[in-house]
């Protein structure tokens, strides 16, 4: 989930912070930079796969750093930030929207971290003005929220809540969140504006949004501590019936394995890297406060590389065998683990999340009904792996798989009639197909109450009978007049002849031709 940091660079950010105990004069901007520095440092160390970009805004906006994992560049741009004129949030949000769409399209969930002092401009271009004129805007001048992509908006105020509540700023910011579908949060500073309180505010953001997601991946007794990146988001199912957010478990248990061909490119809600980690279990016993030196850490990492890890084994075998592991994420919630290779031939263990529910993929059926092959009387994959129990067939075939009759277009009806006539001319060889097509037409005509058609086709068959060449097999004439007679009887609606599930059967004749023999 990429992050856009939207930094207020308006003049009001340069307002000094009144500090009693601090000797140095600090601006709000300094506090903001300190907070962001802390965020960037945290990401560089603990969340380094996150793509982050930096946008500064005043009355204009500028993309200072495009999406990157290079936190030094971000830090540098932050330190070189200049001061500009007034705050104009609307255009800046437009900017964010553009920047994200250009890079990630419209499906990628994004996090927007807005850092501002809470003075949101005056007059035209101010947030207040934007919000007052929300309604009745032309299509091309719509307010940028909600974003066209799923986005969480985190508003980091370099101000405390009381300050913001004195004016209507807090109210405006809350409105802004609502416009974003309520997705996000407003953070304010507690107590005095100082380095400590800004760090505590960004600390809260880090804890909620940028802390790694630790989990344990299990396959029976084999297990590995892992980090799932990006953090899996809670999922809401039917808001009406099931309004509770669903979180994935931190215990990821493998249920079994399925071939890639059988799972066959399933739709997924999100994808996550599963990275094996070393969890320092001793920490609980020794107590907190034992932070390792970086040097030791690298040697610890090297050491960890040499200790066999289940993730690596699993990844290797999944890759070689072309299989996926079905993993349980929660009650009636599943996902799959597989080996994912990028263009540089680097591969990694990836986890995709299916939509929660007992049956995420129709072709697998209910996941709870998937059992070990040893439960089956006969190996469903065959002794030589030539078979597969998947995909499951639906109970009722879809229309395109069952030769339905549709006469909405005249051509559909004409084709069906011509098919009968074509076969009629090839009697008795085509007796089977002739009656099959005839019965298909008869069924549809009865269902649609289209008795006129039955009469019409009966007449056509009678005419065909008169047109039979002298060389024709005698059976042909019998079958044609028999069929015509049966159609006419059906067209009366007489329940004896017009039953839907009844078929017209070929007439049994004494001419032991191919047709009769084929009965």
């Amino acid at each position, binding site marked *: 989930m990429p992050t856009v940091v939207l930094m207020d660079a308006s003049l009001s950010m340069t307002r000094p912070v009144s500090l009693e105990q601090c000797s140095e004069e600090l601006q709000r901007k300094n506090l903001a930079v300190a907070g962001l520095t802390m965020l960037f440092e945290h990401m560089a160390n603990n969340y380094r796969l996150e793509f982050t970009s930096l946008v500064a805004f005043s009355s204009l906006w500028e993309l200072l750093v495009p999406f990157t994992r290079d936190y030094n560049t971000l830090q540098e741009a932050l330190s070189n930030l200049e001061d500009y004129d007034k705050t104009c949030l609307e255009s800046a949000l437009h900017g964010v929207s553009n920047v994200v769409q250009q890079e990630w399209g419209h499906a990628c969930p994004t996090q927007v971290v807005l850092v501002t002092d809470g003075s949101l401009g005056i007059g035209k271009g101010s947030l207040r003005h934007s919000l007052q004129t929300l309604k009745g805007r032309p299509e091309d001048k719509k307010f940028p929220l909600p974003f066209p992509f799923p986005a969480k908006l985190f508003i980091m105020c370099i101000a405390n809540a009381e300050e913001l509540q004195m004016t209507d700023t807090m109210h405006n910011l809350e409105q802004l969140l609502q416009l974003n579908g309520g997705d996000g949060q407003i953070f304010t500073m507690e107590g005095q504006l100082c380095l400590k309180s800004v760090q505590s505010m960004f600390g809260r953001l880090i804890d909620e949004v940028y802390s790694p997601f630790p989990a344990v991946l299990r396959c029976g007794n084999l297990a590995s501590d892992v980090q799932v990146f990006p953090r899996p988001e809670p999922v809401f199912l039917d808001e009406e019936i099931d309004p509770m957010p669903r979180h994935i478990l931190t215990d990821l248990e493998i249920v079994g394995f399925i071939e890639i061909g059988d799972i066959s490119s399933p739709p997924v809600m999100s994808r996550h890297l599963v990275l094996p980690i070393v969890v320092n279990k001793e920490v609980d016993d020794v107590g907190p406060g034992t932070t390792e030196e970086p040097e030791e850490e690298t040697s610890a990492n090297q050491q960890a590389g040499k200790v066999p890890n289940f993730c690596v084994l699993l990844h290797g075998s999944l890759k070689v065998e072309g299989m996926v592991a079905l993993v349980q994420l929660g009650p009636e919630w599943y996902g799959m683990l597989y080996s994912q290779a990028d263009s540089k031939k680097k591969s990694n263990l990836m986890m995709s999340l299916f939509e929660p529910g007992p049956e995420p993929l129709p072709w697998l059926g209910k996941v709870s009904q998937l059992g070990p092959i040893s439960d089956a009387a006969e190996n469903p994959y065959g002794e030589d792996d030539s078979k597969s129990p998947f995909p499951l*067939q639906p109970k009722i075939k879809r229309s395109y798989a069952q030769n339905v009759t549709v006469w909405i277009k005249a051509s559909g009806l004409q084709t069906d009639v011509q098919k009968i006539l074509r076969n009629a001319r090839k009697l008795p060889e085509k007796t089977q197909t002739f009656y099959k097509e005839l019965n298909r037409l008869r069924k549809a005509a009865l269902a649609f109450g*289209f008795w006129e058609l039955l009469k019409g086709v009966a007449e056509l068959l009678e005419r065909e009978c008169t047109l039979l060449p002298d060389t024709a097999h005698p059976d042909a004439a019998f079958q044609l007049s028999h069929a015509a007679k049966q159609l006419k009887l059906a067209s009366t609606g007489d329940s004896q002849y017009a039953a839907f599930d009844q078929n017209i059967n070929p007439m049994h004749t004494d001419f032991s031709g191919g047709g009769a023999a084929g009965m």
Partner: protein
Amino acid sequence: MKMFSVSHKTAFVVDHCPYMAESSRQQVECDVLTKSRGQGMIPLAPVSKSLWTCAVECSMEYCRILYDVYPLKKLINYIVSDSEFHILNSWRQEDQSTHELMSALAAVGPPNPQEDPECCSVLHGLVAAVESLCKITEYQHEARTTLMDTADRVANRGRIICLTNAKSDTHVRMLEDCVQETILEQNKMAAGSDRLMSIQQCELVLVHIFPQGEDTLVSDRPKKEVSSLLTSEVHSVRAGRHLATKLNILVQQHFDLASTTITNIPMKEEQHANTSANYDVELLHHRDAHLEFFKSGDLHMAGSTSRDSGLKETVTLKWCTPRTNSVELHYCTGAYRISPTDVNSRPSSCLTNFLLNGRSVLLEQPRKSGSKVISHMLSSHGGEIFLHVLNSTRSTLEDPPSISEGCGGRVTDYRITDFGEFMRENRLTPVPESPDTEASGKPPAERAKAQLERYTRYWPMIISQTTIFNMQAVVPLANLIVKESLSEEDLLTCQKTVYNLVDMERKNDPLPISTVGSRGKGPKRDEQYRIMWNELETLVKTHVAGSERHQRVLDCIIACRSKPPEEEERKKRGRKREDKEDKAEKSINKDSEDKSWQESERLKGALERGKEEQGESEVIKDSPDSPEPLNKKPRLDEIQLPEKAKGPVSLLTMWTNRITVANSRKHQEFAGRISSVNNKAELYQHLKDENGMDLHENGKATR
């Protein structure tokens, strides 16, 4: 997404009154005469459909599309109305199929023009439809029972589609009023019933059908609110083609469908088999498959075209060769069932048959810039065709660290092939739902997990950690012992495996023992066998709780494995004491059944490292007679020593020390260690006296 939205229940009310028998006056020429045969023949008069036939076939088309795209949870109740109402099916899922409906419609037949028009009315059907909407569906019932106290969250909404021939706008208003009144009436009744639900929202869609060439007596009217419960809209449509188009648009609106046209489908010409032409096929599917286009405003760029005065839009996607193979796992963000608009046209059936045969097609989104982006894929799964949406934007997970750079990434001898075999054995298969399996307790998925648990009780991850899994001779036993229950035959096979190993030992066959971490030639042959037997015992011990036969496999191993003679003596001396130890060990095993394996895993890791550091001090490993039970732990203690001496204590050392301390409480300290000097004791002093004794004796015979 709401499960119980208006589209959960759709009641079709089709007018079956005498006037519906009237001809639509749209004629179909079904006698197409070919030039060669047509001479001098009078062609058959064209047939024409009645208003009834038009209404029925268009409503069936609506149902066909709906059932293709939503085979479950979107239900139709089909009602026919004349002098009374006829309900052709129920809300039950098994009643939801076009075949069922066609069969019921055939039984109804076309309207009887001779019937007294005074007693016939579509009103009967509308009243029945409202009553029917109050009836609870199996899905609503299920949701209510699972929700219990919040059952009121389960909504009851529905839609009535009425196909009729109305007299006038006043007549239409009368029908609306009637529906409104019936809803109020039925809601009162439903309030006092368990099997009925009151209607919270109802959409009435009145379709007035009139023959071609006539002027309509009823005016079109967009959706309006009749009351807080009822909205109503009126569509006045000519029978035939127009009606079909209208219902096609309605089914799209009602069920959030969108249209995609696949272009450039290469197809062999019927007449000229060696030429091919390109065809287009239109498909309907859930509109979320176009989400990306809607959001980006790319709809027009994606080649959408408007037809029928802008009411219907379709997105054009281009057929893309080369095709994809099934073993590729695409990143797919959605898969939606499709239904071809023109199901039995030749291009449609060619495309669907091609897909049903198991092939997949990638689809390309034409862009203004001329660049190509593969945005969708058509693929069938078990006779159902899905439109997959492929991710075509940059991935946030690009350029991840390779797995070889992370934890365990530098280990090179993982048992990849063995684990592959393990995965094949633990593949899943659908187990048919039956009351029997439910009675037996665990659902299949839980049984699958239980099997994984059994199979992994002892599963070393790297080749150098194991001997037995590198030996062909052990395979039969290793495959069987993990089973939930063993047959008499299985037991026999296991025992044979053990005898075979004994045989190998007697013949002094080499073992594939790892020499990683040890310098020189590695352990001696007899030591190799001792390691192998220990490992085999470890494996089998994790399963002895399974059944009596599992226990017998272990008994067999214990009985057969070679015991060096000096142990015999010790046994003679202290059989009692050993019995005690045995028991103690068993209880330990039970206590730490779950952890013991992980622990021993850790210990082994430590052992490997210990060996490296220890260098030449192979004395211990070479010993033919380390005591078997818990033999690794004391050894570990000694290995830890040099590590301890090396400056800061590592976490591993701290952990293992803790474990050792815990373990040492559970067993008597060895005499050797108690009397050791600098934690080293001279071992096998007695060997000096008893030199030359035959070390290889069959343990079986000695017992």
